[in-house]
């Protein structure tokens, strides 16, 4: 079956932070555009817009993706998670706590993306050593911290599990 989009919008159904959402999206919109401009989930940041900085990272079906390079129409049927859904009932997630405790956050622009990538690794029971952890997080840029405390935060949460 072909879903030909005659006009410029298409209806998509997905979940965002656990809530079912049905909406008409423009075929020109990225998932990032929809999250920020239509749903006001501005925790997902727009950085480079070309998939280099990772500030726009969200989880799609449990894996980290750059939402700037992901057309909104592709989100149909997907489970999407943004930083807004990570703290539950006012309680930061374990990953968020680790970032705070490790002093991993400076300006904070890159942090939602980092937190989501580390969350995915944690949920996949990643047994990363430091080098492979760096590789796993290489799709994120941070211009403040020099990465050390971010890596420490990630290591903390990924090793405390075991």
């Amino acid at each position, binding site marked *: 079956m*072909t879903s030909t989009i005659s006009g410029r919008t298409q209806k998509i159904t997905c979940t965002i932070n656990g809530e079912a959402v049905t909406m008409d999206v423009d075929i020109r919109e990225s998932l990032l555009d929809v999250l920020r401009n239509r749903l006001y989930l501005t925790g997902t940041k727009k950085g480079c817009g070309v998939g280099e900085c990772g500030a726009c990272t969200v989880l799609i079906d449990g894996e980290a993706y750059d939402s700037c390079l992901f057309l909104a129409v592709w989100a149909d049927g997907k489970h999407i998670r943004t930083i807004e859904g990570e703290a539950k009932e006012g309680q930061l997630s374990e990953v968020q706590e680790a970032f705070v405790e490790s002093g991993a956050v400076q300006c904070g622009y890159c942090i939602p993306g980092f937190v989501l*990538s580390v969350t995915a690794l944690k949920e996949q029971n990643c047994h990363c050593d430091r080098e492979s952890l760096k*590789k796993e*997080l290489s*799709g994120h840029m941070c211009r403040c911290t020099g990465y050390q405390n971010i890596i420490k935060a990630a290591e903390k949460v990924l090793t405390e599990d075991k």
Partner: protein
Amino acid sequence: MYDIARYEEARTVDEAVALLAANPNARIIAGGTDVLIRIREGHQPSAELVGIRHIEELSKIELRSDGTLSIGAAATFSRISKHSLITHLVPALGEAVETVGGPQIRRVATIGGNVCNGATSADSASTLFAFDTVLQIQGPEGVRLVPIREIYRGPGKVHLGQAEVLTAILISPENYNGFGGHYIKYAMRKAMDIATLGCSVNCKVGTGNIVEKARLAFGVAAPTPIRCPGAEALVEGKPFSAALVDDFGKAAAAEINPRTSWRASREFRLHLAEELSKQALVRAFIKAGGKVQ
């Protein structure tokens, strides 16, 4: 927002070909990591797109009954690098595609897109050349098979009709059985960078520790990815030695035609070609079971 005038989602290859044939302005989008950036930069105004990312048959990685490894063109790099058929039969390809961009990019970017964009710097390309890969292409007239060496037309250009879809990348058993392979990407950073030079060597070891077969391919050493048949012939059938490795490197550098770009000068690329081909040959030879003192 992206300047997209029309978007159609194909669910089968037949449907993708039909949609492309029905609209001469239509272009394919798979992972979108190159296409969306091109649109963003204004190179594809009022883009009319046929999406192929949801075509199930295009993401399959399977072994055919004759031993041919078939990699669906829309298989993503992250799937390829983790797939057991890849890690068992053609590990060098899995290692090569792990050097593309970063993890988020590798989850969407596809191997077919890497080929069809025609970039000489494509990280999968030199390794696919070293494996003598055959491309399976479907169009309005049916299916055709083309060796990867014949698909490139020039920088960023491939011999692919507007209504044709690259459906699978095929590696036959005589091109992977017994081979050890190694890819080296030389770039300024370990991730999120484009190769200054990419070098892939596949080789096979014969009795008496000889280099029975050698395949050498480069990315960014010429306007398109290339093989170096001269360097290959020079070492084939000869016992492995440090001198042979040196000769291989020199022959490789003599066979390529890199350019000066803002990333690196021609001279630096020639130097890299000599060094990387030597290193890759040694590593590939070890992986193939050979002995290097």
